[in-house]
């Protein structure tokens, strides 16, 4: 069962091949057996999962099952879940039991899904390797000496290892697509505003977006249909109808215009990754698509702009963790200043502190114009690059990451770590959707193809990815880790 996709599981549940309880028990057993080594979960909520599975089976027995009823999944530990610890990968929130459900959690519960638990992540979603978690690094199931990517590394590893068929992640600069690429799964970052951020612990509010991580584009479509939509509690969510993304899978790609941004095939790209991506593009040509080179001239400004804007927002978003109302509080503070300083010094890890400091600096009087304002201007240019490109082509394609998953501990220098996100970060600045699909492997480590579309083009992206998965089998490959007969 653990190898099946959501879509296959839904069919099997409907056919009565097994119950949601059996499925849930089986996966919980797998998590228990395998996750000690992988460390992809921060909290496993077995009791709640079994109760939800029973409720789903009962609903099915009453003939009230929907398309997601009884399907197991996992939630990145950034989504607030009522009555369950929501740590965000931080010591700061190690003791935080959320008193409410995030909008997406509410929607998934209503749809009858069964959450098995909360997955590991880089602290406050800051990181590209999942090495910044208070709960320890996550390992990549394809190679336990490699990182799974980040910050949604736990979600990606859990799906890749067959612990859950799908999981929710969040993506601020590549945090869904990069771990999806590293772990050989499919991950979609929707258009900014497509999915409500209510109840998602904020890192960089103007960039954060939740999205599905699963084995196939079809499964991502199924999940996106459930979580997308306007939410009155999130002013930045967009009031726009939600299509049935599954129903739109199947359109022919004949005549599809694909653009290859030349900036995504330059220095720093691993040649083996490049050839995998070029092979994938050939597959599209064989499906009737045409390919042309395009340019996104401001690409090289994306990382600097991101590392001004995201830390600026983060420095403000993370001010609420002050030891006063919830979260970590230092022992016996002798005054208010001491309470603030020690609670925050003890509660936050190095990378979080680094970004708070950067953000505090760039917003300071005398620096604001040179950094924040300039970065926002750059952001507009980056967005315009994409708008211009989409005048010429339907979708853009390139590598999700410059290299396959790197080794744990390999990127000790923060800046070299930041450069990992070179192909993903501009997409968040522009607010457009992007999907990463498995498209090859280098030395046993997966390679991800990134496909980008204009705002709200999720249907098209999912179909373009789906068509690829109809004629390739990269998404069906499974790591040796956790194989039942291994």
């Amino acid at each position, binding site marked *: 069962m653990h190898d099946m996709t959501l879509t296959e599981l839904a069919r099997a549940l409907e056919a009565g091949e097994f119950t949601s309880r059996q499925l849930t028990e089986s996966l919980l057993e797998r998590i228990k057996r395998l996750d000690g080594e992988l460390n992809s979960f921060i909290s496993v909520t077995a009791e709640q999962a079994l109760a939800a599975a029973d409720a789903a089976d009962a609903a099915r027995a009453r003939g009230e099952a929907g398309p997601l009823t009884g399907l197991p999944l996992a939630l990145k530990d950034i989504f607030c879940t009522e009555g369950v610890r929501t740590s965000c990968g931080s010591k700061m929130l190690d003791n935080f039991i*959320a008193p*409410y459900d995030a909008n997406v959690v509410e929607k998934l519960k209503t749809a009858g899904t069964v959450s098995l638990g909360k997955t590991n992540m880089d602290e406050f979603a800051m990181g590209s390797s999942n090495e910044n978690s208070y709960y320890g690094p996550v390992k990549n199931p394809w190679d336990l000496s490699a990182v799974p990517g980040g910050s949604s590394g736990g979600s990606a590893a859990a799906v890749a290892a067959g612990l859950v068929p799908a999981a929710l992640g969040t993506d601020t600069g590549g945090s869904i697509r990069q771990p999806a690429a590293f772990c050989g799964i499919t991950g979609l970052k929707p258009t900014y505003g497509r999915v409500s951020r209510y109840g998602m612990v904020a890192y960089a509010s103007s960039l954060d977006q939740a999205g599905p991580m699963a084995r196939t584009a079809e499964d991502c479509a199924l999940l996106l249909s459930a979580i997308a939509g306007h939410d009155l509690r*999130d*002013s930045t969510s967009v009031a726009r109808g939600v299509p049935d993304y599954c129903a739109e899978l199947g359109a022919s790609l004949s005549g599809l215009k694909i653009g290859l941004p030349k900036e995504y095939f330059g220095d720093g790209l691993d040649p083996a990754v490049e050839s995998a991506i070029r092979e994938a593009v050939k597959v599209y040509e064989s499906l009737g698509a045409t390919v042309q080179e395009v340019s996104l001239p401001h690409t090289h400004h994306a990382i600097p702009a991101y590392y001004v804007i995201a830390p600026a*927002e983060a420095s403000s978003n993370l001010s609420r963790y*002050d030891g006063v*109302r919830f979260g970590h509080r230092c022992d016996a503070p002798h005054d208010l200043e001491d309470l603030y300083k020690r609670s925050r010094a003890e509660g936050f890890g190095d990378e979080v502190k680094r970004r708070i400091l950067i953000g505090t600096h760039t917003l*300071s009087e005398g620096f*604001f114009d040179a950094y924040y304002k300039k970065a926002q201007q750059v952001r507009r240019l980056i967005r315009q690059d994409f708008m211009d490109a989409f005048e010429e082509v339907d979708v853009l394609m390139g590598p999700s990451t410059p290299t396959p998953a790197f080794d744990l501990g390999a990127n000790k220098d923060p800046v070299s770590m930041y450069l990992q996100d070179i192909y993903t970060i501009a997409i968040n600045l522009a607010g457009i959707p992007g999907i990463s699909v498995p498209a090859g492997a280098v030395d046993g480590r997966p390679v991800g193809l990134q496909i980008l579309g204009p705002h709200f083009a999720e249907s098209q992206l999912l179909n373009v990815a789906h068509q690829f998965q109809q004629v390739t089998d990269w998404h069906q490959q499974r790591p040796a880790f956790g194989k039942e007969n291994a």
Partner: protein
Amino acid sequence: MMQWETVIGLEVHVQLATRSKIFSGASTAFGAEPNSQACAVDLGLPGVLPVLNESAVAMAVQFGLGIDAEIPEVSIFDRKNYFYPDLPKGYQTSQMYHPIVGPGEVEITLDDGDTKRIRVHHAHLEEDAGKSLHEDFHGMTGVDLNRAGTPLLEIVSEPDMRSAKEAAAYLKAIHSIVTYLGISDGNMAEGSMRCDVNVSVRPKGQEAFGTRAEIKNVNSFRFVERAIAFEVERQIELLEDGGKVVQETRLYDPDADETRSMRTKEEANDYRYFPCPDLLPVVLDDAYVDHLRSSLPELPAEKRARFQSELGLSAYDAGVLSATRAMADFFEGVKDVCGDAKLAANWVQGEFAGRLNKEGLEIASSPVSATQLGELVARVKDETINGKAAKQVFAALWDGEGDSADAIIEARGLKQVTDSGAIEAMIDQVIADSPVQVAQYRDAEPDKRGKMIGYFVGQVMKASRGTANPQQVNGLLKEKLDALC
């Protein structure tokens, strides 16, 4: 001796009378149990997001229209970042660069009846913080977040005021505009209106401003005047002794009647303002603004002018009666029922205001309604009762001894006696009962008799239990007494 000029600018924080908070659905009612009106958003829990309250926007725009201000099409919320225990998110959501109300003007009336226009630089929306409670916690501090997220309109004036009196008059004018518009209860004791006062002095004739001090959180008209008076004197003394005024934030202590330094410019926070990414820019189209404009009530300045031109009231009376919406509404209520603006003005400012004052009550809690008072004044106007009896009726109405003036007049038999036969009978009785006084009257020089008649009038009025028409009593008495001489 150098002549000094005072320069004052005010930042007035007005709590808007919305039912729920500016960015959450929690109630804004005053006086609830600590932290009983703070929801997840007000507590700044991880993951929560603000949603702008449309009625706070409407109220801010109404204020802008009330002072003839520009209403920019786009306004933007910014975050003002600083740490404080009663500031749950570690930032206050405010409007730093693109406020909802642009430049406008407020007319103030000075004691001598002159008016002056004070320019308003802008007004912006922001959220209030919670309250830190230092008592009852044994050396610790309690935090009550009921007030956190209450909508505030901060109205920032230009430095156009030149005296403490002008500053107080400006504050009163703002109070009057916001209460007229019904966008705030204006209750200063509950903190619905507070202000920060910027004060500097400069040698008369000098154009450049002196260094200013900001006095924080002054919460009454009287304290504004006193804080400024103290601060001006302090600054002048400092300068005349060869010192310098430091730019700083000061606190006014009403008990000691002085201002004290809180922090200097060097110690000031760097608030690291930036646009709040959780809120969209507020875009107001013409139709929206026009709709609010068309539903604006008559404002104090217009009302004052109309009271003079249409009702023939004096400038003074018109000013007093239009000072607050409650006062104006009450007065107009009395006037509409009795049909005599001048009589209504006299009664509202005299007997009615006096009694309210004595009891320390607001108009809203007056036991006598405008209709009741109007009916009473109508009986004075049609001479059913005389002035003296009217005061008795008023007191009885106040004490709840009857539902209407007519009922009390009837019950107490206060109807004015104008039947001259009845009055003559009472006069005859009084004359018969007062031989000594009659003899004195007769023996007095004729020009002294006028004063002496007062005694007889008093006796007759007493005999009539105040109901006799005093003019008639006077006339008839004079006739009868003179006939005896």
